[in-house]
């Protein structure tokens, strides 16, 4: 092999870059799936839980359009139950804490919805009182 003094360090750098996730997570405690605090006094979300996990942002987007664009203030879910459309008043009535619920998942996958720039999260209200 020629140019060992350049090839070997190059390959070592390549190796460490490409295996970054392996050693980055090494020293830390085992990965734990986020456990959002679920509401205690109700059993059902607006739609099926599984569907909500994957599609809640889609639902929120639809809700927003319904209110802001189409002047519709109520949403009837697939089971026929009628909900008032509101991020703050409906979602956050059952899911009483943004920190203990929404953020738990969002921090893990590094999303920070900008919705809260304008919409008020419940805890901030109680803290402010």
């Amino acid at each position, binding site marked *: 092999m020629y140019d060992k003094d350049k090839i070997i360090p190059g390959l070592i750098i*390549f190796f460490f870059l490409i295996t970054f996730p392996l050693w980055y997570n090494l020293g830390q405690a085992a990965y734990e799936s986020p456990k959002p605090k679920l509401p205690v006094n109700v059993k059902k979300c607006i739609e099926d839980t599984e569907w909500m996990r994957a599609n809640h942002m889609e639902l929120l987007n639809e809700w927003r359009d319904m209110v802001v664009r189409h002047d519709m203030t109520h949403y009837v879910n697939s089971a026929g139950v009628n909900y008032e459309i509101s991020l703050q008043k409906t979602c956050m009535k059952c899911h009483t804490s943004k920190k203990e619920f929404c953020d738990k998942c969002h921090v893990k996958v590094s999303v920070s919805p900008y919705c809260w720039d304008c919409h008020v999260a419940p805890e901030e209200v109680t803290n402010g009182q």
Partner: protein
Amino acid sequence: MSAVYSLIIVLALVLVAVVGAGGGGLHALFGVVIPYVAFVVFLAGFIYRVINWAKSPVPFRIPTTAGQQESLKWIKQNKLDNPSTTWGVIGRMVLEILFFRSLFRNTKMQLKVNGGPSLSYGSSKFLWVGAIVFHYCFFIILLRHGRFFTDPVPGCIEWLDKLDSILQIGVPNIYITEFLIVGALLYLFLRRVCDSKLRYISLPADYFPLFLIMAIVITGILMRYFIRTDIVAAKDLIMGLVTLHPKVPETLGTIFYVHVFLVSILMAYFPWSKLMHAGGIFLSPTRNLANNNRMKRHINPWNYPVKLHTYEEWEDEFRDVLKEAGIPVEKE
């Protein structure tokens, strides 16, 4: 025809994942075993290819590299295109790797016939634009995926993700790179089919990576906006892989396995294909060797000691015969 073959292969791969992970429910195979195998093949193959290249001697510096080499004092040297020092070479490599300088210098030949034939060379930057957009998007997308591979997610990855979705259009926010990479891939593909000369020299090995990457991009976009799946479970699976405690969540949709299977194929295919230019660019002799032929002697490593037979020895050997024939000899 090459394009059709490649397309059929990529579609078949998608089908394999749909049937295997979706219909057959082989989640552990598609989510754990295949990604692990593919990653090991990628890593080992990459290192093997580089070492294999490093085994070939490259004794001669290539001086004909599009620029004046270092010469007499009053002749201006082109220090970046034809460097004679290590720093010059580093400059050339940086420009090549970060900005694709060779592609930037791409020219197009045109023969104009009306009013007598005239041949002209013009600059042609489309390929450079397509290539640079594609490569940087791919790179950013790769880094962005770091949010699924790390916990806690490093600030720079979070930051990159924010920057990429800065337009804040839609929920989830669209990424700028998604649009750009689809556009760039389409251009790179159409470039091959629309130009008859290029079509003629294009092989399945040229189309296949294009289609494969396109399929990966499409499944990724579908998964984010159209056929959503449980992203938290996706992170569970990936973190299981990278902490070497694999687990297979049940709530993941088939689309996720298709995406991961295609990425695995890309990883396993990478070292054995033209995609190895990622490593090869560092080892290209026309780029990484200083043109110092005139200052330094470069000895050919495959030179062996040549067996000599000098005139004196030859005369010694034939002295008697030479004398007999009356031919003059140097030593009596």
